[in-house]
């Protein structure tokens, strides 16, 4: 049953823009790409100051149940969010964390990348979400760089377009350096994409 869906969760603190990242991912996959997509987020007191959470489900078939059953990919932008929303993570799934704000990972298979640091380097900490988006896009392999670019352009005000493109590519570059082989217990790309048709 599960094999018709690829389930992702993005989470972080209120200001880290994880919902935006999720929406752009969903647009890249479902509007510019050919997937069915379904994107939800948590509203509620935990989104104030505390953590916020967004989910994206992509599938080649129409999506029935809109929420994550078992996460194939989990992006955590800080420690609290990681700890709060780690449940129903598929052990074979892809865990990607922002090393700037996450010290402890619950599995050795985690991919830890300095999204926020990178964003600071680019001059604007708030594009950390787009850096992360680039990495997630690359690592999941669900969306083409071109579609990611289109989706970013569509959601970002014109004057910030260049900055965001730069952030996206910085994220992709970070991801390219990840040696998936080195991750003990980490899923291979085949593990992840294998079931999707």
């Amino acid at each position: 049953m599960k094999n018709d869906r690829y389930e992702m969760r993005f989470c972080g603190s209120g200001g880290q823009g994880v919902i935006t990242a999720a929406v752009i991912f969903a647009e890249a996959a479902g509007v510019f790409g050919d997937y069915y997509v379904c994107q939800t987020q948590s509203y509620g007191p935990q989104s104030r100051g505390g953590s916020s959470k967004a989910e994206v489900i992509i599938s080649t078939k129409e999506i029935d149940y809109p929420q994550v059953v078992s996460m194939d990919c989990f992006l955590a932008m800080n420690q609290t969010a990681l700890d709060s929303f780690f449940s129903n993570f598929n052990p074979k799934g892809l865990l990607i964390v922002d090393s700037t704000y996450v010290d402890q990972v619950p599995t050795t298979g985690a991919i830890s990348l300095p999204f926020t640091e990178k964003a600071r380097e680019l001059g604007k900490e708030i594009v950390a979400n787009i850096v992360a988006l680039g990495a997630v896009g690359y690592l999941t392999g669900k969306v083409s760089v071109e579609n990611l670019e289109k989706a970013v352009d569509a959601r970002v005000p014109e004057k910030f377009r260049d900055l965001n493109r730069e952030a996206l590519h910085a994220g992709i570059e970070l991801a390219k350096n990840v040696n998936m082989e080195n991750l003990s217990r980490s899923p291979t790309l085949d593990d992840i994409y294998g079931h999707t048709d």
Partner: protein
Amino acid sequence: MNSTATDQSQKYLLQGNEAIVEGALAAGCRFYAGYPITPSSEIAELMSRKLPVLGGTFIQMEDEIASMGAIVGASLAGAKSLTATSGPGFSLMQENLGYASMTEVPLVIVNVMRGGPSTGLPTSPAQADVMQARWGTHGDHAIIVLAVSSVADSYEITIQAFNLSEKYRTPVVLLSDEIVGHTREAITLPPNEPLPVFNRIKPSVPPEWYLPYEDNSRGVPPMADIGSGYRHHVTGLMHDAKGFPDFSPEVTGGFLKRQYRKLANGADEIQMTKQFMMDDAEIAIITYGCVSRSAIRAVKMAREQGIKAGFLQLVTLWPFPKRAVDAVCRKCRAVLVPEMNMGQMVREVRAVNQKATLKQLNRFDGKLITPEILFRKLMSL
């Protein structure tokens, strides 16, 4: 994506709430009055951006009572009108909703349901306003209530809501919920096969002959816009065919009977349902709104186990689609009615077919009923 071409279809990623706006505009809605409330506020916000471009009007009123008053007024003046709210606001709208029913004014009220009662759980989904949508205002009255389960639904059924309201001169309540309202899905707009749009029937007689509340075969009198030369009186008092107060038993009884009859006449098109894998089903789930999504998945899961399960989605909740429900009940050896409330529509299912083996499944803790829960229940039937 940002193409200016409006004559060609494109894919968009929209929230359910946004799709309701697109559906309303496609149906010809040109007036919105509302008061913000979570989880419906996106509808107001998007309307405030879009309506002025179309020559329409958006206004944020001082409360929900005023919002209802304004959309009744605007509709009387000829503008297809919408408001959107959630539980607390919907409770406040009840008095003027009754006025709209009494004066047979077409309009659409969206209630994006959240957990209740009272302020309740403002950011959690629920389906607990289903009985209120039917019975919330005082006195016997006619009303149509529809429910949506997805972004696609939110677009299409909003158009249908407007069409039914215009065709039957009646307020239509469209129930969404926090899940559907905030879920984003890709949708192609305008759709490849756009739904037809229905506009209220205007009088064809000269103004002196016009009877705004006269019975006819459909039970739906033609409706003249204010300002179109057909001066008449509109009152929440019981009234005669001309619209003037009349409390005689004949007029009163006749009026109320016509209200019910006009919806009964249109039952075939008003009482909408959708089916999934029902053809050979031996057990079935009957539900509506966001739970439909879990139901479909549960049915698929059951089928994988070789169980002949099927699903009936109630698009129209009121008038209750008795025929479709009865057919399912008669066909299946067991029927499961899951709801995100303490048991509301299940009462109607039970009333329709008293012989069916009926199981209800209720979750009212602010969380969605998952496919797993339904699947397990299906397997136990």
